[in-house]
Each structure stands twice: as C-alpha cells, then as structure tokens.
C-alpha cells in the first residue's frame, strides 16, 4: 500500500468521523437520538468481523486444496483481524446497548452470535497453539475453520430470525429503513475500515513472511548437506 493511500485512508476516516458528529442529524425513534451515531461505527465493525471470518474459511479451503503455507498464513491473519473487529464491534455494541436498552448486555441473538464468533476464533487459536508440527497445524486448523463455518452461518443468519431480536434485520439494505444520511455515513466509514483492513492484512503478512525467512535461514545454516543419498 502506498503512502498516499495510507494518508488518504486516515483523512477519509477522520472526515467521516467528524461528519458523523456534525453533518449527521440526530435520529428519530431512538431513546436518545444522539446515541444513534454509535451505529455508524458499530455496524461496519460487525460487518468486517463477518467478512474476516469468511476470508478465514476461504483461505482455509484454499490451503486444503493447495497445501500452500501462504494460504495458511492468510487464514491465520484473517482470524486475527476478525478477532480484533469482533472485540471492537462488541465494545461499541454494548456502549450503544447501554444507551438504548439500559443494559450493556441483553443476550440478544446478535450479541450471542458475536460472542460465539469470538469463541470460534479463540478455539481456532487454541488449536493452533496445541499442534507443534507446522503442516499438521495448518491442516487441522483449516479443517476446524471449515467445520465451524456452517455453525456460524446458522448463528448469524438463521438464529436471530428464529428468536426475537432487538436488532433490526433489514434496515441497512432496505430503501425505507434508514435515513439516507445515515446510510451514506455508515457506508463511508465502512469503506474507510475496509481500506484499513487491507493495510493491516498486508502489514501482518509481511511480519509473517519475515518470521518465516528468519526460521528458514536458521535451518539452512544448520543443514547444508543433502539428505538421503543413493547407493
């Protein structure tokens, strides 16, 4: 990512943040109309959490097909970023819940599903930590990611529809549901976050590759002789 893009991303996010407090009118139909502004920051984080989770499953699938360690690294990074945004979505979400519903935690299906998403990520990291051999770790964690995927799809899409939810289901995409000003600001912030996501992803991948290079160098120093000679 070029420096210009990084600077532009920073300016963009700052601009959207300022707009969310000045240009954006307080929303009607909320207990505290001002608190609706939190939604602008909360929803993009939640959407990104889910995108990261999808990316994790996708890279896991790619790894199992190709056995390319790079795909495994990308799957791991997606999970890490997913965890970061899940924490941000939960924290901003419970700030909003406190304003709107009077309690930071209501066991709402959407709250439950993000906690489960975090549990999956946590389990994924625990699994990675408990397998020593690298290719085995990659295989097992990819398999686990793909097993957890249908469960998460259920929790995110089916479960909130079975059980009554405090969250609106369709406001973001329907034409009538949300004030256009809100839609613009929200998706504006989302665009900024996506750019930041790509930035973080690339930076994290560079860290991973540098670590791999360091390990490789150690091993090539230790063993220069070819192994497995023929008679």
């Amino acid at each position, binding site marked *: 990512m070029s420096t210009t893009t990084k600077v532009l991303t920073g300016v963009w996010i700052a601009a959207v943040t300022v707009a969310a407090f000045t240009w954006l009118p307080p929303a009607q139909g909320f207990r505290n109309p001002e608190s609706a502004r939190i939604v602008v920051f909360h929803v993009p984080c939640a959407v990104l959490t889910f995108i990261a989770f999808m990316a994790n499953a996708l890279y896991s699938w790619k790894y199992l097909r190709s056995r390319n360690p790079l795909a495994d690294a990308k799957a791991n990074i997606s999970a890490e970023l997913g965890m970061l945004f899940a924490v941000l979505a939960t924290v901003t979400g419970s700030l909003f819940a406190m304003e709107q519903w009077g309690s930071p935690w209501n066991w709402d299906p959407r709250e439950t599903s993000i906690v489960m998403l975090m549990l999956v990520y946590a389990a994924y990291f625990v699994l990675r930590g408990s397998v*020593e*051999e*690298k*290719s085995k770790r990659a295989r097992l964690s990819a398999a686990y990611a793909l097993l957890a995927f249908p469960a998460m799809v259920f929790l995110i899409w089916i479960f909130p529809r079975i059980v009554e939810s405090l969250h609106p289901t369709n406001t973001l995409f329907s034409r009538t549901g949300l004030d256009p000003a809100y839609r613009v600001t929200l998706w504006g912030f989302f665009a900024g976050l996506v750019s930041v996501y790509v930035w973080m992803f690339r930076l994290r991948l560079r860290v991973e590759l540098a670590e791999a290079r360091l*390990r*490789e160098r*150690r*091993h090539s120093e230790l*063993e220069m*002789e*070819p*192994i*497995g*000679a*023929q*008679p």
Partner: protein
Amino acid sequence: MTWQIELRRVGKVFNDRPVLRGISASVCSPGAWTILGPNGSGKSTLLRIIAGLLTPTDGEVLYLRNGERLNAQQRRQAVGMVAPDIALYRPLTALENLRFLARARGMHLRDPQLLELLEQVQLRQRAHDPVATFSTGMVQRLKLLTALVHRPPVLLLDEPGSNLDEAGMEFIRLIVREQAKHGIVIVATNDTREMDYGEPLIRLGA
C-alpha cells in the same frame, strides 16, 4: 501382473527441518529390496511415505499395475505393512483382530478359514486370547498375517526382526522369500542380520 513402485524426488520436511530430500528410486515385481540407514535417518518416514501413510512435502510416489497408475483406494488394497508403531487392538483376540482387518479390506472370510490362517502362523491355539497376553514374537506373527490377509502384491516391513529370536527371524525370512517370488518386498532395517533380505535400494545418512 507386474507391479511397480516409483519414487520421484521424494522429500519430507517437518517444521522447516528436512528429514528426506530428493529421493528417487524405482522397483518392479518380483523382488525384495532394503532401505538401510542408522536410527533417525528417516527410514521409517520413507517407508510410511511409500505406504501412503504420510504425504511427502515434495515429489510423489507412484504405484503402477502393468504400467497403469493406481488411485488411493487401489493402492490401499495393494499394500500390506508391518511396523513397530502400527499396533493391533490389544483388548481384542487374535481372531477378532484378523476378522476385523479382513472385513475392513472387503474379504469375506468365515471363521474356519480365519482359523486356518491363524494355524499357518502357529496361533490357532491362542485364537481366542486377547492380543494383550501375547509375546513379542506372537504379536509379530499376527501382524504379518493381518498385513498379508488381503494378499497384497506389495509388502512393506519396518525393522521386522527387532526383539525376535532366531525362530522368529527365520519365519520372517520365509515370508519375505515367499512374497518376493511374485510381488514386491521392501524392508527398512538397521540390523546386520536383516540386510540380506534383498538388494539395497536406498541408503540413508544420519
């Protein structure tokens, strides 16, 4: 029918540490071969790769029947293997172990036939005893029997004679000689008494 196993630049890496690198070899039935090398040189790893128990990091192992490539399922049917780290079910009796492995392989053998097979390895008297009560030699004979119950053309043996007495060694020698008449035997060993089972195919360094 001719059977052929071909190793093409096989390599295995564990945690960035190469255990095997660039091993190529080819064997064609009938005959017996050995893989030699000291402990820790990767003999067992190589044999497990040949058996299909381990996927190599680089290269591939091909099985050919009359020049035709076998798929995973056909390959499983073509291989019998005995190794120290492949155990039998100790709570089950000799007959139950044999019955399970024969059935899993798709062999429809009745108990009298299974008992006859056990007779061939001098285990008929102990057919209804749990494997946990068997001596090393008896276990090894039963392992050989279960590895050969589906009449595989390829027999892979990992240190088959370790902890065996003279009679046990003689028994293995007999089986190797018999199998080498029509199929392929590959023995991985570090024991000087076992090196004459076949001609050396691969010699691994430490």
